[in-house]
């Protein structure tokens, strides 16, 4: 066997196989591009999978209007650079009505700006498969997720209706109106992701690197505070050395204290992390869990 057949090569090959199966089995797939590190890896793998051909699917970004400006800048520059077709979809009605987590609560805000927007976009463009960067290690309801995960005509996930997946036989057989979510990074961990980003020198949003930023402490989470609209009365921002482990909407994504300024330092820090990455995502807290959201059609 090849001496440099590392665990990263094994994961890479498996993901490429899954991406090719998706293109072979579906009429109109799309890659759900969320701008984060997992999306960066997913895009990198997709470019490898279809080389020397072009990417055989467009990217869809569901924009809530609350993404960090560094994310949007990165998205536009990166997609242009690699020649990707980017579709940006927003729930304009909800945005115009002023949907905000401090006003609606996190669950309802996510429901309108993310879940409803995603389902609407899938329907509008008639996508039959949506490729996402979710990983089984991230959250416990994802530990049982299939690589090809079936959604009913309302975009909902029913754990009891998922098909058994044996060997590397992924069944893309769906009925009228149903869609598939495809997760090529299922077997990757956060550590694998960063090791691979270092190995392949994959570009990521600068927010992942540590720097001094304005934050407020709220319920034990460090919330970015460069925009006053996300602040509650009486909250006073302070300057701290922080970075982001995961990227979501600015008002709902916590930072972690860190001095990791290079990819290598981030990979090193991730390797010894004691707290899970999703602990900084407010969406996972509270009564409405990731499992509930998945059932409703969340990514």
């Amino acid at each position, binding site marked *: 066997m090849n001496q440099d057949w590392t665990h990263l090569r094994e994961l890479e090959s498996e993901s490429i196989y899954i991406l090719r199966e998706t293109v072979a089995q579906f009429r109109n797939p799309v890659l759900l591009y969320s701008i984060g590190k997992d999306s960066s890896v997913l895009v990198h793998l997709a470019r490898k*999978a279809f080389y020397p051909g072009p990417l055989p699917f467009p990217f869809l970004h569901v924009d809530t209007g609350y993404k960090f400006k560094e994310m949007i800048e990165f998205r536009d520059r990166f997609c242009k650079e690699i020649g990707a077709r980017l579709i940006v979809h927003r729930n304009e009605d909800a945005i115009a009505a002023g949907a905000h987590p401090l006003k609606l609560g996190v669950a309802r805000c996510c429901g309108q700006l993310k879940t409803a927007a995603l389902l609407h976009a899938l329907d509008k463009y008639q996508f039959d498969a949506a490729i996402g960067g979710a990983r089984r290690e991230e959250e416990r309801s994802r530990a049982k997720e299939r690589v090809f995960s079936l959604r009913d005509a309302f975009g909902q996930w029913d754990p009891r209706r998922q098909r058994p997946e044996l060997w590397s036989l992924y069944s893309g057989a769906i009925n009228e109106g149903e869609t598939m979510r495809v997760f090529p990074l*299922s077997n990757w961990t956060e550590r694998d992701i960063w090791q691979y980003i270092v190995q392949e020198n994959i570009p990521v949003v600068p927010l992942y690197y540590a720097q001094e930023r304005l934050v407020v402490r709220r319920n034990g989470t460090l919330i970015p505070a460069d925009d006053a609209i996300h602040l509650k009365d009486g909250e006073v921002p302070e300057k701290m050395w922080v970075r982001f482990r995961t990227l979501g909407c600015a008002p709902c994504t916590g930072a972690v204290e860190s001095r990791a300024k290079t990819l290598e330092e981030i990979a090193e820090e991730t390797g010894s992390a004691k707290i899970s990455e999703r602990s900084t995502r407010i969406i996972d807290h509270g009564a409405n869990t990731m499992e509930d959201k998945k059932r409703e059609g969340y990514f």
Partner: protein
Amino acid sequence: MSSNVLRFTTAGNVDDGKSTLIGRLLVETQGAFEDQIEGAKRENERRGGKGIDFSLLTDGLKAEREQGITIDVAYRYFATPNRKFIIADAPGHEQYTRNLVTSASNSDLAVILIDARNGMMTQSRRHTFIAHLLGIRHFVVAINKMDLVDFRRERYEEIKRDFTDFVARLGGAEVYCIPISALQGDHVTGPSDRMSWYTGPKMLELLESIQVDDAAHKLPFRFPVQVVSRPPASPEFPDFRGYMGRVASGSVKVGDRVLVLPSGARSTVTGIVTRDGRLDEAVARQSVTLTLADDLDISRGDVISVEDRPPVSRTDFKATLCWMNERKLRLNHRYVLRHTTKTVRAIINEIDYRLNVNTLERESPVTELQTNDIGQVRIKTLQPVVCDLYKLNRHTGGFILIDENNDTVAAGMIQE
């Protein structure tokens, strides 16, 4: 060289301590994080328990935690500096056969939990039989709860003998037995001063060192075509035609003569193309794009193979089926059969026998198979299937059946 990823499945009765063992492995290798451990503790206390219940770390769905059961195969990850581990954790009771078949299909090793007080039970035999049937040839037997049998060596030896005898009856496999206490931590990742009579490796050491050496590397070259690549002309690739796929077994070099099935056409490999450059060789499990010297009519589902020792092209065969759906098997009904990257129409003509997974007896005549039944059947396909026997090559010998509702209803292994 050793494989850097070990995929293993875990099987055992609900009360054998499987969740405790996995929970401990995760916690002690930092495969679980402090906030997750805290969450599991809080949840246990809310339900009136005390301290950490490791099973709450591994039970994924709310429905499961509420009912205290496990519905589905769950995947867990941990790593040491030497190896990455992927656990396919199959629940011990409800839907056991179907879930174990699924988790074993992608594993190279099975960890079987046995309660030292009870020894080999019907369930231990059933789990071992199914894992063996799916091609697993490495068994780590965790003889658990040694603290409840006073760490007696005789008890360990007795169970070890029973297990080894049973596996010999199945046709043999590597067996490694370890006396442990998952709850108290003896021999999981650390030592045990209460079982000094045992001088073998601890659980984690064993998992790190066992050479499963994926047999796929030694088998003849097989390359099921996934996608035919014909990109628009570019200066570097004015007229590119390549075959994308993942090497199912063996390896291939530029210049090798190959056979394309089912057509029987022959050609020579002219290139192994990747975005990281051209390669001289592609090995098992590697995703690449091949180019051939001749312009052949090749499409998705065709298999590119070595010239000598090719796979066979068949439209009828005997197979062992595990039935997975609530709607039972219908004879002479049209199913869709998916095998490697090929999809064909198929019917089941005959059921030869059903296997009693508890006694290992063959029951016949039988007229139906239902959920969790395993049996041997005869299958006819409309188009040829390019395959190997499952016992020779898991990657080209396994298939699934899909019904008209698009449900995956059975998993099959080609026998003859």
